[in-house]
């Protein structure tokens, strides 16, 4: 159900929701393949891009949760004019950016994660109550959000915000209504008998305005004379809330002493109406017999005109008999066809089986809706639910709703209940994963909700990992803290390529800002030898230029990390040499210096610097380099100068610089010769 985008030359963008897209969109390149127009379920909605005027052409690019649209420079013959320099971002799932709905996303994430941990191997019988309670948790989160939105809508002075909140409330109301019905029919899967009780609860919960009106009536001075009195009574009857009806009728009965016996009779009828008790010992057949008995009694009362003198009581009596015409006379009070359905079932078929529902639903809908009025998306969704066509419910919801939250979570729950097994898609892996991926991709574009998406991807076995890999690299890293969070996510999932890439981004940024220490830390974390070498070079260049090391705290504490790259090892060791020298541990310093060259740890370009560093050691009063060491130093110098001569002849180096080099070499040779002489003398002396 990925949206497809078609461009029209008139500055219009069509977002088409499809039944299915045959070829899966290649996630890697986000390219757009083919749409088969005959598969389109509904007319595409058209989004007008205001800044792009008529007659202009547009190009677009897919993003993870949005589309970028720009004006192209295509010119029809004769047309002229400059192109528009704006890029437009078009977002499908706006709800993600609603501050109040963010609570919905956060809370439901928690429930989602809990649901995934329910163990597969448990027998389905013990899992069912868990699934029902999870479904209830989802619904209570929706309700909480709805209440908050309602409060904002009422309290705000901002008209636009109020309308927006109002719209969201009505969407959430519909979502909750559908979810609740799905819970009753699919998840709880109540058998005949209990089914009706659940449906009654469902209608009562979503037609709560009765209670409000009742409160108004009861709080008035004389409730029985209130103009809404009978409406409230009838509404209660329609919802099967007979206790409330009796309490209300008592008030009227006391006002009309003459009609007392009539009220008394109605009261008896109401009190005797049997309701199925699923926890009790009574079987469904016993209940049915009892109910038929009661039904006949009501019918008798109507036939012998017991209530003929009171219009209202007669209406109630007819309703109790489930008289269709009477029920349809109260369309206003019923409000919806599904209320009509449940009321009709209550008074005509209280032992309705799940499999018979669709028949009654269809007929109630036809009866209730005028032939002229068109059924709305919500009606179709509910009808599909009554028909137990889960896929149709999900499909219709995907088309009608403006967010993926609902379908993704509901489908996931139904999948856990093993209700979706038979269905396979021509693309992707399965419906559940497909919808979860869509929802999570939307979340990932949000600056704060992206972390939630990670858990959703984790629970998509087939493509979740690929999606995560692609998305995680694109999270903007404003701070190191955020980078660390992203890294932790990658490291926990052994996504080593992404770890390297993120560390590299951070290292490059540090390098750009001349923070060599940070850059080195990041490349050490990524175990990126090449980059560590690059940064070590920078450190050495800095040293050559300034004569001092920067970031000593870091270089002195490299530890085992030093072994990451040869150049880094050299940097660490070279710094160690300076430390030893500073501590006047000359012999050790000299030995280290020599080993840097002989073990080829130092790059040859740096040998001259090292030899120059040896100068002050050679000039010490005390002999530090032994004769053997001096020979080795001389060998190093010769090796260096011979290679330098080759290069010097090929390049035009300024005379002055060459002079300095020559003097340096001369100085070194002199110092080495003198040191050698002293060393030979000294070593000879010691031996004798």
């Amino acid at each position, binding site marked *: 159900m990925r949206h497809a985008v078609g461009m029209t030359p008139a500055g219009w963008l069509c977002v088409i929701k499809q039944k299915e897209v045959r070829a899966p969109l290649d996630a890697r390149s986000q390219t757009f393949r083919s749409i088969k127009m005959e598969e389109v379920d509904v007319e595409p909605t058209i989004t007008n891009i205001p800044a792009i005027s008529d007659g202009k052409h547009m190009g677009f690019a897919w993003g993870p949760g949005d589309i970028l649209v720009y004006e192209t420079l295509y010119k029809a013959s004769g047309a002229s004019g400059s192109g528009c320099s704006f890029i437009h971002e078009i977002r499908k799932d706006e709800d993600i950016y609603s501050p109040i709905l963010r609570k919905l996303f956060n809370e439901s994430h928690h429930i989602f994660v809990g649901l995934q941990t329910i163990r597969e191997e448990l027998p389905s019988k013990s899992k069912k109550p868990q699934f029902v309670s999870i479904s209830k948790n989802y619904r209570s989160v929706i309700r909480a959000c709805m209440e908050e939105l309602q409060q904002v809508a009422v309290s705000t002075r901002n008209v636009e915000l109020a309308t927006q909140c109002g719209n969201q409330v009505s969407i959430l109301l519909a979502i909750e209504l559908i979810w609740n019905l799905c819970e009753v029919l699919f998840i709880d899967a109540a058998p005949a008998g209990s089914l009706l009780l659940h449906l009654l609860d469902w209608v009562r919960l979503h037609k709560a305005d009765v209670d409000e009106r009742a409160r108004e009536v009861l709080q008035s001075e004389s409730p029985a004379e209130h103009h809404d009195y009978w409406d409230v009574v009838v509404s209660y009857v329609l919802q099967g809330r007979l206790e409330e009806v009796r309490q209300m009728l008592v008030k009227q009965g006391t006002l009309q002493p003459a009609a007392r016996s009539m009220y008394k009779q109605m009261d008896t009828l109401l009190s005797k109406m049997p309701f199925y008790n699923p926890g009790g010992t009574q079987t469904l057949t016993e209940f049915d017999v009892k109910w038929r008995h009661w039904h006949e009694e009501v019918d008798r009362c109507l036939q012998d005109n017991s209530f003929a003198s009171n219009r209202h009581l007669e209406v109630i009596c007819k309703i109790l008999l489930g008289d269709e015409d009477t029920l349809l006379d109260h369309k206003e009070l019923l409000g919806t066809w599904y209320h009509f359905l449940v009321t009709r079932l209550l008074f005509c078929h209280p032992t309705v089986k799940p499999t018979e529902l669709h028949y009654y639903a269809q007929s109630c809908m036809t009866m209730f809706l005028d032939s002229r009025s068109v059924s709305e998306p919500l009606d179709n969704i509910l009808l599909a639910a009554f028909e137990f066509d889960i896929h149709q419910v999900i499909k219709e919801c995907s088309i009608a709703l403006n967010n993926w939250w609902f379908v993704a979570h509901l489908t996931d729950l139904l999948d856990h209940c093993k209700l979706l097994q038979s269905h396979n898609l021509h693309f992707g892996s399965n419906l559940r994963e497909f919808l979860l991926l869509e929802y999570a991709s939307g979340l990932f574009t949000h600056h704060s909700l992206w972390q939630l998406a990670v*858990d959703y991807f984790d629970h998509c076995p087939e493509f979740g990992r690929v999606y995560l890999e692609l998305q995680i690299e694109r999270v903007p890293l404003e701070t190191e*803290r955020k980078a660390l969070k992203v890294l932790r996510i990658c490291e926990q999932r052994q996504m080593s390529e992404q770890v390297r890439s993120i560390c590299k981004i951070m290292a490059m940024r540090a390098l750009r800002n001349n923070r060599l220490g940070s850059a080195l830390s990041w490349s050490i974390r990524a175990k990126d030898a090449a980059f560590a070498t690059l940064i070590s070079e920078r450190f050495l260049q800095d040293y050559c230029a300034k004569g001092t090391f920067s970031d000593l705290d870091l270089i002195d504490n490299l*530890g085992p990390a030093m072994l990451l790259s040869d150049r880094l090892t050299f940097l660490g060791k070279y710094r160690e040499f300076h430390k030893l020298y500073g501590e006047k541990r000359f012999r050790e310093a000299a030995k280290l210096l020599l080993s840097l060259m002989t073990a080829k740890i130092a790059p040859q370009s740096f040998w001259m610097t090292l030899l120059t560093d040896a100068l002050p050691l050679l000039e010490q009063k005390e002999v530090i380099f032994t004769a053997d060491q001096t020979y080795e130093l001389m060998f190093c110098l010769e090796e260096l100068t011979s290679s330098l001569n080759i290069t010097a002849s090929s390049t035009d180096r300024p005379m002055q610089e060459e002079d300095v080099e020559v003097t340096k070499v001369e100085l070194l040779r002199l110092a080495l010769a003198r040191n050698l002489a002293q060393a030979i003398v000294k070593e000879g002396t010691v031996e004798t």
Partner: protein
Amino acid sequence: MNVFFPTDNRISIWSIGSNLSTGMEDGFEGDPQLLCEHKHDGDVLDLQFLDQDRIVTASSTGAVTIFRHHQNSQTISVSQLWARAHCYPCDNAPCTGVVCSSPEIVTVGEDGRIIVFRADQEGVVRVIENADSSTIHAVTYLRTTEILTVNSIGQLKLWDFRQQSNSPSQILSLSGDRVPLHCVDRHPNQQHIVATGGQDGMLCVWDVRQGNTPFSLMEAHTAEMWEVHFHPTNPDHLFTCSEDGSLLHWETSSHSDMPSFLQGGRNSSMVSRSAMAPAGGNQSLISAWLSGDSSKGRLETTHMLPSQTLSVNSLDVLGPCLVCGTDGEAIFVNRQVPV
């Protein structure tokens, strides 16, 4: 008691009810209430009370801001702003930590700078450039003139502001592994005892008077420890929170040599505890944290959050009140912490 929490680039002031009435019955006083909020540029990486009605925030844009909470009108306004206090020549450098001791404010950042401000002065009092070659993650006061910083290569640095030099007076470090440290807190009474938390989730207790390595290392969390706090009045209790989604309550039982398993259940040990040491268990000269040895069961840890999913980024504790904020965009308030 008011709690401050930034959400979606806003700084918000919440009232969670007075803490005087807690301890009575179930201690439930309804939901926290939002008093007022103000826009905040960038992510809030740290925040601190300067005094009764001023708060200092550290922003990912590198800005340091003082907000003033007007309690009469329940509004909040910017009282002072140092934009780009931490910065690179052509880029933002997030300010990662702030600590204040009115009127002085010390901030640290990814740019490795330590900056000292005074709330009553517009300019900057002192800057230590290149105080660290890596990112400084947190800062706290050791004494009035000394601060402690922790960095991303596992070092704890002590800075003495009486000295003019721009180098630390002492560097303590974890041996070898260079595990980044993310948070630091000082024992409220015994100032030489310092606790830090690092990337591997380990809790380190340091004695800054002796040694350059931590006194003890304790395995705590399985991911980055974002914050560590000693209880301000009962420092035998310590709280840590982490990226792994847990909030831990640590308790050393210094008051008794009796192993904790002989003291019965948790609650009864709490009762006996308050009966035995009414003035608090931190009277002994040798701190429990330095004599503490987790293997002997003298250190107890308790998980404070029911389920662990998303990172717990920040926490604070005062009296019996514990507050924390998570990546699930939720604030948890526990009004009855057993301390």
